[in-house]
């Protein structure tokens, strides 16, 4: 499989994970979290390596979806971390506690997310 193909698959998955529903509904049912600590964990524990420091998504072997303001509800987010689909590594509670995951969730919800491409001239070539 070419790297080009990997990234294409990642884009599809990113669309599924990141763009389906409104993020407001997803975040409403989440436990309270410390976004600052979530950012620290996100950077220290390697989340950023695949998903980007801004939660813009990326690629590992396959899907590394957009996480900024993810539409996944917290339970789905946690399930993906504990028992992920595809090749994402599983983070057991020996690495991330439920509280840590809540903090990370709070962090990705705090990210600025998308803007309108029409407002960015160089994206309209």
């Amino acid at each position, binding site marked *: 499989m070419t790297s080009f193909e990997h990234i294409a698959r990642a884009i599809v998955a990113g669309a599924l994970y990141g763009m389906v529903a409104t993020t407001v509904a997803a975040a409403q049912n989440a436990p309270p979290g410390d976004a600052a600590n979530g950012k620290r964990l996100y950077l220290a524990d390697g989340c950023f390596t695949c998903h980007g420091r801004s939660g813009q998504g990326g690629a590992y072997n396959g899907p*590394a979806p957009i996480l900024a303001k993810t539409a996944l509800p917290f339970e789905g987010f946690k399930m993906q971390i504990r028992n992920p689909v595809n090749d994402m590594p599983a983070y057991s509670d020996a690495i991330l506690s439920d509280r840590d995951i809540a903090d990370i969730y709070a962090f990705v919800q705090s990210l600025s997310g998308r803007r309108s491409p029409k407002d960015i001239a160089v994206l309209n*070539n």
Partner: protein
Amino acid sequence: MPERRIADSSRRNFLRAAGLAGAAAAVAPPAATAFPAAPQEISKAALPGPLQTAVEALSPSSDPVNQGSSGGDFMAEVLNALGIEYMAINCASSYRGLHEAIVNHTNNRPEIITCVHEDIAVHMAQGYAKIEGKPMAMACHGVVGLQHATMAMYNAWCDRVPVLVFGGNIMEADKRAPGAEWLHAGVDIGQIVREFTKWDDQPASLTHFAESTVRAYKIATTPPMGPVFIALDAELQENPIADAESLRIPKFAPVVPPQGDAGAIAEAAKMLVEAQNPIIVCDRVARTPAGMANLVALAEALQCGVIDNAGRMNFPSRHPLNQSFRRALIGQADVILAIEMNDLWGTLTHFSDRIVRRSRPGTKPGAKVITLGVRDLYLKSNYQDFGRWQDVDLDIAGDGEASLPALTEAVKRLTDDAKSSAFEARGKKLAAAHLAMVEQSKSDATIGWDASPITTARMCAEVYNQIKNEDWSVVGTTIRLSWPHRLWDFNKPYQWNGSSGGAGVGYNLPASIGAALANKKHGRFTLAFGGDGDFMFNPGALWTAAHHQIPILYVIQNNRAYHQEYMYLVAMAARHGRDVTKMDIGTTLKDPNIDYATVARGMGAYGEGPITDPQDLAPALTRAIAAVKSGRPAVVDVVTDPR
């Protein structure tokens, strides 16, 4: 190319040189008196010892000291007869005869491209061939230099790119000087590269050299293409030509690539026309400028989607039928046409890199698979680049590009009005999905737009904004960097040339410079993205670009890591429930950070960076582009997020 003997002028050169040598011998004083007389008194110097005195008292040798021709002259003419424009080299005594002959006898034709490592030289040839559509040569020491060259040769092999590699050797043991010449000689020096070359030989005469070099060129350029190797005997290069009149340069006629069997093409057309959701997947279809047009014609005849793995410039990025970022279509297809695929099984399968490495088909049950290509016509055993077995329903041995017009015509013949209407409706849906994908890509690119480190999306968007009106050609990329194909308008055959082939690190910088060498005479603006890890394998390639005035804009995606490995280590630690916070050990390039702009300047190139603030990127690119337009290589070091 017509059959020819050594060109008359060259034969005259041989004869004239021989005559001059003879004339010189007739009038020259004895060799002993040809040297300046020794001073009568040597003050403040040691007196000559008994050995030196004995040597000076010896009679002159009867061995000849001049020659009028050499085998290297003839070899250089063979290379020129084949139309080889360049020979990338790292100079070495084992082919000094050919080297000197190229410089003097054929007036630096092929033009010598000086490289500081054999890996650079072969990779340059790989990049060049994919733009120019023909091979260039590379020469090295046949033992130690060839060992340096092997990784690049493997990349060229996996990428199915023709490269002519020459390696010096001294076949006759009694002709080897003590020391290095024994260390640098071998009985069968081609053995080390035989598993990833299409053919090799060690000619024992000049006639043998000529026939083997023309044969090598023919084999290398016949699809499936690949590198070839010729061992150059030093005596053959350096010694006078015994009988110039007997030498001839063989006639070369390129092989017409084979089309698929007419019956099989008709069967494929029938399957495609009858299908509800056909799809085309491809990788290395376009080997000439006609390839992209041929594929567009077939896709438009069927109004079906094309998923391009981008091994070559196969399909325009903004064509409405380009569905390369909608891989789910593979799972919906009832007929899949796979053209010149490199890894078909991997494309049609979901594979998980987990503790248990499972796979499942990515195709729907009953889907028919048609393959068209020549890749499997030449395989070797040891290295496993052929990939896993894929079941297919119709396997057509034929060159993809050459077979496409016949397949397209067969499709058109089978398309009645009802089919035509259905195809049109299908095409409209695909076009709408394509536009949605483009809009989604633009939206995705906005996330983290002002962040530092800079996102790869912004890096690519800023570059395109400044080069979009040039006659540009992108000839290098980094691992998993898809933004150019998502955001840019690729529509010319030379605007993309694929990647390394073998995923051997160190390809990107020298191969991009080789491609830039090919683009230079066409006046194109060459640019490439490259990773920082890859850059450090062959930074000396920049010196070659500066020395030979090869303009290229090289944008380093500097994530300060071998990032794919970084991610793998995080996964390994997570699998064990162990510490994931130390995975930068052995995977990152920091402490100290490498200053690539300074490295570039040290090589004679223009350097900008490190750029950490996205606001600084556009002005830096403007300055670097101005340097490129002045004929220089320019590096812009962009500190980016990992992916």
